[in-house]
């Protein structure tokens, strides 16, 4: 029985449990003198039975599905001839792939031996057994759960409290998913990074000046430097983010000031949403815009001025990233500026200050913590941005301070190291996780610092 069908049957079972549970409660109540003698409303008895039919079965089902393929693969491997089992993990993976292809009737890359055939048959029979056993176990669990709950139903059963208790547990579980996601992120990047640091010393990774992650397949291969010094990536990331902030901060901040202090209501109502459109545009679109329009423009302008501009210059990527970040700076600053009380503006005007003096000497200082916080958030956004740099920045890790040169960033390297088929244990792929760890730690640190700045230095005006 296929999994969707199984889930459908299970849902049907739960519906049946609801109907029977409800009916039993009503009929029991009619013996005792009407529904008002029940502890809870009849629908709660129904829900109680339905939840009992559904939840244990679903839990077993999801655990089964999660571990099914691992266990089946393990059993197939055990049955393979010993010399095949001795192969390394990657070679064994190829063999298993062929077994799977043979079992599902696809093209197989090697000669079909009797052992391969036997393994495929074994795999097929195991999968059949697994599917059948899963259906039997899950359905009987559903029936059993529903049946037990149905038996328990009596006018004195506190069905509402029990149902509410279950719902409460579900709500708590749902809200702890955020914690599990964080734990998952930390563990997944941390474990792979630790494995990477066993191969490449952490000091070399953090302070090395040379990044060329080509690993040798053979010992005598040329160009297999395998250097993992990430400093050029960090400087490249900083340069592109820096250019982006040079674009975004003045434009974003000044437009926030203009829109909240100077602009007429109708202009503000029109311009603010248009600027915020920039925040909703997918980053892949910015990447295309950078590669198609901005990079040639920058290159041609540079050529006109007699400058040597790389076709994937940091300047183009940074400019477009700056455009992307404008709405972050402007709408966050706008909120902060609007939070400064009107009385402070009035006081400044009463002393004879012009509007710009009020803005520069009263409002901006008062709003400064919030503005700094929003800029920090924007920096963290710029550092973690991927698609623009993947499409518009270069791949070669150069240690340069020239914004017209092509540089690469942390996120670009993560993508290039992980896209495509690679074995999972090479330092190359593990390096991507180490870079991911750095990225996660830095952005997290920036966010916490930003929140801290806002909280600590915020002026309280109430």
């Amino acid at each position, binding site marked *: 029985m296929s999994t969707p069908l199984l889930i459908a049957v299970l849902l049907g079972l739960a519906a049946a449990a609801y109907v029977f549970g409800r009916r039993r409660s009503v009929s029991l109540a009619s013996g005792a003198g009407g529904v008002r003698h029940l502890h809870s409303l009849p629908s709660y008895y129904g829900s109680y039975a339905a939840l009992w039919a559904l939840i244990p079965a679903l839990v077993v089902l999801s655990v089964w599905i999660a571990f099914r393929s691992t266990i089946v*693969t393990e059993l197939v491997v055990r049955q393979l001839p010993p010399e095949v089992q001795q192969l390394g993990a990657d070679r064994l993976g190829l063999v298993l792939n062929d077994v799977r292809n043979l079992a599902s009737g696809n093209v197989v890359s090697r000669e079909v031996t009797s052992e391969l055939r036997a393994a495929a048959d074994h795999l097929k029979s195991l999968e059949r057994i697994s599917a059948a056993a899963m259906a039997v176990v899950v359905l009987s669990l559903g029936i059993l759960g529903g049946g037990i709950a149905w038996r328990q139903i009596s006018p004195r059963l506190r069905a509402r409290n029990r149902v509410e208790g279950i719902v409460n547990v579900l709500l708590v579980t749902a809200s702890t998913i955020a914690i599990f996601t964080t734990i998952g992120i930390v563990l997944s990047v941390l474990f792979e990074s630790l494995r990477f640091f066993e191969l490449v010393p952490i000091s070399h990774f953090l302070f090395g000046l040379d990044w060329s992650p080509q690993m040798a397949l053979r010992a005598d291969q040329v160009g297999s430097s395998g250097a993992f010094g990430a400093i050029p990536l960090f400087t490249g990331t900083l340069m592109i983010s820096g250019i982006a902030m040079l674009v975004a901060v003045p434009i974003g901040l*000044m437009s926030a000031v*203009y829109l909240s202090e100077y602009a007429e209501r109708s202009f503000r109502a029109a311009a603010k949403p248009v600027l915020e459109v920039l925040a909703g*545009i997918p980053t892949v679109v910015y990447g295309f815009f950078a590669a198609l*329009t901005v990079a040639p423009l920058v290159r041609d302008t540079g050529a006109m001025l007699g400058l040597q501009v790389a076709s994937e210059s940091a300047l183009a990527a940074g400019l477009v990233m700056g455009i992307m970040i404008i709405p972050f700076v402007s709408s966050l600053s706008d909120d902060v500026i609007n939070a400064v009380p009107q009385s402070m503006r009035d006081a400044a005007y009463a002393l004879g200050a012009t509007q710009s003096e009020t803005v520069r000497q009263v409002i901006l200082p008062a709003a400064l913590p919030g503005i700094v916080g929003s800029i920090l958030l924007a920096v963290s*956004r710029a550092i973690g941005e991927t698609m623009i740099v993947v499409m518009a920045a270069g791949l070669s890790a150069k240690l340069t301070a020239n914004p017209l040169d092509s540089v690469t960033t942390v*996120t670009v390297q993560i993508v290039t190291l992980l*896209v495509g088929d690679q074995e999972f244990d090479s330092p190359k792929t593990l390096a991507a996780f180490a870079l991911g760890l750095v990225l996660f730690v830095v952005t997290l640190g920036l966010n916490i610092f930003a929140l801290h700045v806002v909280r600590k230095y915020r002026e309280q005006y109430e």
Partner: protein
Amino acid sequence: MSNGNPSSSGAPPVRRVLEAVTGSLERRYASERRFRLLGRIAVITGLVFVGSLFLSIILTGYTGFKQTYLKVPVTFDQELLDPEGKRDPAALAAADFGALVKRAMQAAFPEVSGRGELRELFGLVSSGAEYQLQDMVEADPSLLGTTRDVWLLASDDIDMVVKGHIDRSVPEAERRVNDRPLAWLDALEKRGAVETRFNWGFFTRGDSREPELAGIGGAVMGSFYTLLVCLVIAFPIGVAAAVYLEEFAPKNRLTDLIEVNINNLAAVPSIVFGLLGLAVLINFFGMPRSAPVVGGLVLALMVLPTIIIAGRASLKSVPPSIREAALGVGASKMQTVFHHVLPLAMPGMMTGMIIGMAHALGETAPLLMIGMVAFVVDVPKGFFDPSTLLPVQVYLWADSPERAFVEKTAAAIIVLLAFLIAMNALAVYLRKRFERRW
């Protein structure tokens, strides 16, 4: 004299202050005007950026919705296609329609000879033309033995010439299309046998290496399945988490921890979620690469913080009097929340949900990590089929060297933006329609 102030020439202090103020006024007003001008420049620059972004995409992309067709008389030769004359579908499926296209082209230009020239001649039409003819014959076998004028799909280079993207004044050696095909094209044009039509196939077909055959149908379906998975997972969990945190959670360490986590997750770079998906879902749980289920799961984790934060805001806006009234007539806390508060907060939650989905629709980076950048020709039919998504398709095409893919990329972006605008408009409409002031 001991005053030390050079301007104090005996005038009363008030006058002096007034002089100083009026004297500096011009300078201050000038700086005021400068500041205002700077602000205006900033806003206008921002607006210009928006405008040039949209303009450049639309101007590049609108031609991508059209495709060039060439009218060629085709003789559906019974001998070639169905020598046994049984009109057996299996035999027709195996018939050599490629030769049919070649013969038709040769018949249209009988003066062409020589292998090189012929290859150039056959290059006028797309490699998909033979399937076009095959579909025609399979739909209507009575075509066999007749001669019809058929509009065949032109190849991408010819399409580019017709759309004016290839400059004819460039010397032949540097041009993508040689002189001879251009002459044939002009001849066809004189016969009225060149036409650009709306490219419906762009919306239905899957990806292809040939730009004229490539479509976003597969990517749209992939996005649909992925977003469906994302919705089914993220919405219930997001609503439940928002309800718990806003209505039930006691003020304790665990609640604080959850809140801190949600706020931090909202700021984690999306590519890190891709790493999570790769390490946990694919390598640990052995889920299939490139499948919408995995993509949907990763995107669900990514948008969950957005949905929870929006959900809490909309629960917060339901006034306490509603809760007190329900509790007052004897509802339990759970009944109060689920029967009264949640329905009132639902429009706000839906709005947050749609915005989260729009965010997920445009996301690319985490999907690259979990192998959704594969070249997928078939339109995916389920949650486990290898598939690609609309933004990933944009990324793939943007990387392709063919000139014709540039306009296809921009056209795909226009479709993507249209979806996003529609979703955001729906969110705005919902907010306007159901927003209540208490």
